[in-house]
């Protein structure tokens, strides 16, 4: 059974690492639409995939957040990526497999996965 002691050990490991982070540096933001239609269309596992993959690869300058309605129900789940100095990229009809590919290609290698973008879907 998991115990609080284990959680304490996790904190000890993390504290030093967190303190070392450069707070002022602006990183990449991943925003997942989590309103009713997004949830119904599968936004929850998409978000989970981003969180897991970003954690696993230890991408320190990427943050994942959630938002309400992005406004295009039939294209949900929708994910927006904001990179400093670049235009926003909107990915549509996402699923966990696509999310994993966006992490490896876009977040790690900075190459937009054009075929998943709203431009390709319209």
């Amino acid at each position, binding site marked *: 059974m*998991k115990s609080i002691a284990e959680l304490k050990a996790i*904190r000890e490991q993390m504290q030093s690492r967190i303190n070392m982070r450069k707070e002022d540096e602006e990183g990449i933001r991943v925003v997942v639409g989590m*309103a009713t239609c997004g949830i119904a269309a599968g936004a929850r596992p998409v978000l989970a995939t981003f969180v897991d993959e970003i954690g696993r690869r230890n991408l320190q300058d990427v943050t994942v957040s959630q938002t309400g309605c992005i406004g295009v129900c039939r294209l949900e789940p929708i994910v927006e990526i904001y990179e400093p100095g670049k235009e926003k990229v909107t990915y549509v009809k996402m699923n966990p497999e696509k999310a994993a590919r966006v992490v490896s290609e876009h977040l790690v290698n900075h190459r937009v996965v054009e075929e998943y973008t709203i431009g390709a879907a319209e």
Partner: protein
Amino acid sequence: MKELSLHLLDIVQNSISAGASRIEIGITDSQQRDLVEISVKDNGCGMSEEFVQRVTDPFTTTRTTRKVGLGIPLFKLAAETAGGEFKITSEVGKGTLVYASFQHSNIDRPPLGDLRGTLITLIQGSPDINIIYTYTTDRGQFVLDTEEVREVMAGVPINEPEVLNWIGEFIQENEAELSAE
């Protein structure tokens, strides 16, 4: 929605939008009582009685001064289709309680589904909200209070991947322990 846990996620998002700092989530999963219950109690901005009417039955009320959402009507429909009840009690400035019940054995009842996924999603998005999650079955009860996790983490955000992982496993182990074979 395919799972009740997805309705739960949607309903708690309302509490978060309502500015809640404390959200109590209760799940009952009882075969003996032929009952599944989901309740969400928050200390958000609340709603007037008239407004509750309007968001609960957007198609039967005449006033349509604003675009109405679908989350609450869908949840109500799910409960009523599966032999259960749906209730909202709310007070402006105090908070809101949303309650839905389902007949456990009803063939139209969606499965509870991935409750852990829903909790992790909520904590990831709102690490500073106090979420108290209570899961009750015929075999006992399990409570997760995110305030306790925050205390141990002493300033380290509880939505860091390692912490979310721990919370997820903690929920899963306890749920497995409490669910009937």
